[in-house]
């Protein structure tokens, strides 16, 4: 699973390999194209850089934790989509100044990432707690049933299974 995840997400070396195979002209053209796109869609790039900060942080800090990257990233992107599609309607070069000013959108982008982080950290614990609770109740039920069976059919009905504890 981990290996699969690694293949899925660790695409930069492949990209690097493919990039190195290109000739100088192609490389230069690509870089120019990328710079141009960045200049043309500067507000979007800025939103993405700002909005995806939590995800980028995790990508750098917790490189191997793919589950965390996936969950926080997905939630983060979900929050970023609200602002990103809002920007597309009134696209201008000066738009980027509004980004920092729109506190609601900032909270939405970063909050969604935070929600993902909270879910990642706490849901497994909660889930394990629930599971333990269910198990205890199941054991109680089993014990009650076994006692009833012993009462009705005798002690020998319950097999003596040695505990590995």
């Amino acid at each position, binding site marked *: 699973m981990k290996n699969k995840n690694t293949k899925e997400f660790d695409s930069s070396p492949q990209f690097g390999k493919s990039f190195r195979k290109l000739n100088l002209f192609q490389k230069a053209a690509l870089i120019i194209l990328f710079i141009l796109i960045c200049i043309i869609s500067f507000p979007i790039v800025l939103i993405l850089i700002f909005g995806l900060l939590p995800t980028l942080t995790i990508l750098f800090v917790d490189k191997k934790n793919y*589950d965390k990257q*996936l*969950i*926080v*990233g*997905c*939630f983060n*992107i*979900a*929050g970023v*989509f*609200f602002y*990103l*599609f809002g920007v*597309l*309607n009134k696209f201008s070069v000066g738009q980027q100044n509004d980004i920092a000013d729109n506190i609601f959108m900032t909270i939405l982008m970063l909050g*969604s990432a935070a929600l*993902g982080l909270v*879910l*990642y950290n706490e*849901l*497994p*614990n*909660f*889930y*394990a707690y*629930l*599971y*333990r609770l269910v*198990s205890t109740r*199941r*054991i109680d039920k*089993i*014990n009650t*049933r*076994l006692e009833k*069976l012993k*009462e*009705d*059919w*005798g002690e020998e*009905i*319950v*097999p003596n*299974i040695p*505990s*590995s*504890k």
Partner: protein
Amino acid sequence: MTTDEEIVANKPEAETQQSSSLPKLDNQKFLLKERFEIDFSRPLSWLDNNGAKAFAVSDRIDTSRRIFALICCAETPPRISILPYLKSIENSALMKLVEYGVVTFAPENTQKMALIYEEPLGGKVFDNGVCSMQIKDAPEKFRGLALNFMGVIDSFKNMNITHRAIRTDNLYFKDENKSEIVIGDCAAAYPAYFQQPAFEAIESLYADKVARGNGSDKNDIYSAAVTLACIVLGHDIFQNLSAPEVLRQKIKKGSLALINSVEKIPAAFSNALRGMMNDTPSLRWNYSQLFSFFEGKQVSYGPTSASERPKRALNINGEKVYMPHDVVYMLHSNIDEAYNLILSGKISDWTKNGLENDVLTTKIDALVKQEKNAAGNKNLMVARVACLIAPILPIKFKDMTFFPDGIAKATFVALKEKKNLKPFVEVFDSDLIKLWYQEQESLRSPGNITEFRVYIMRQEIGYGIERIIYDFDNDLPCISPLFNDEIVIGAPQVLRALNAAFKKENISLPPYDRTIIAFLRCKIGKKIDSIISDLNSSREENRVAAILHLYAMLQNKFGPAELPNLARWLVNFSKPLVRIYHNKKYQRYLEKELLKSNSGKLYEIVELLENESALEKDRADYAAVLNEANYLALEKNRIENGGPKLDEEARASALKLVSVLSIIAMTASFAYNLISWVLK
């Protein structure tokens, strides 16, 4: 062997157990067959005979009839097998057996066999050893009396039974005029058990009293002859002599000569008596020979003992002995020397040159050869050779001397008195009885004789020495310690006796033992072989089920309808059978129901405990519950031992769930915003 069917077919015996269920009139009376009222408060001691006590009886139908009852004692049980025949004999010289049956003997409050006879009206013929009839001067009377006696013996012979109780104190005057003499009871005790030594032939005197066996008509003829001699003499003879002394003198002098040596019998009687009292049984006169003699015809007495005497003697223990009887006697008296004589071939030499009997010599040589190949029991070897030398004598083995048809009774007594049974086991485990029968000219061995060794070797319940005695002798009652003093003469009485003998302190004992099962096997037959096989099972519940089935079957067949005590006993005994049901609740239900079933009907207990549908349901439920319990126990074990691993699994599942949620949230957000953007 009396089988179950035979018992049912045998009406008198079937009636026997009906009678015992009839109500008692009062404490001192018992009504037998709804007709004969036995009054235990009116003993008739002058009619006491063969160990039985006599009591007055009144006939409710023929009130003028004079009858009495002989109540048989428990020590010497009656000859049950001859009773139906005895009842059917009509002979004016024999006391008529009117009826018989098991009665409750009020003075002891026990079940005993009662024999109802016609009462002799003229009293006893011999009073204190003196005869009240004078025939010394009346040869015709002697003739009539002798033929009457021989007629009675012939009647018995025709039915293949014997009297074995013809003696002076068993003679009665039939009528008040004292003109007719009748011979009294012969069935109240073992055959010849109460015979005084004077009335028994030499060969019978050799045997132990209890083991004289039924014998043959030759024994009765001898007894009749001595009785006639006493009547002629007017008194009893040899009353002061012990049995061994009488035997010794009879061997020494011969029976008739011995009597003549004490008091001369007139010549008019002695010739007839000589023929009847011949010491060689095969030469004793029968009815036709005696009749011919009285008709004046010439009848042979057989060879004289002097002409029979062998030419050569055998030296045993420093004594010279000639006659086979004497040789056998000396061999048994000196076992070690006898064994050496046999093995050294001196006995063979004597039989060859003294008796001049080559056939006998060959047989003894074969035995010696066999013995040399595998040295065995000295007593057994001497007994075998004795059987060959004098086949008319009883078998002597260790301290026992018995006729084969009397060994069952001897074993019965030993069993009853808790004596050492080892010698009996050795006899049954050997070929002695078979060998004895092979040497008899006029007797055939019983068909089941070959099975004795098998029965002895098998130690299981239903086999062993108990099986042999009941298989070999139909007279013997069942003597289980569980019965107390109850007389049990057939399968129908077993349950009744168990029910009557039940005591609270016995409740923990099984309601059966080896004796009862062996007895029932002999009386009922092969039908209960499967039950016996279950009784020998190592599983307790099989044994319980077997005994329940057996007793329920007996109750259904023979009654009585209610056996409350036995039912209680069986209920307590059936606990292992309750435990074959796995369900505890059902077990408790069964126990409660069993306690409730106090009707005394044994089949109700069987039905309750062996309900096929309930048993099947219990088994099916148990299998299902066992599966469930296994599954639950495994699951419990998995949960309890799973701990951290299960936590990890829960966390992994939670992560998967959150991952999916995050992707869904992202996709939903994208779709929502895209649709909003397009619409704007």
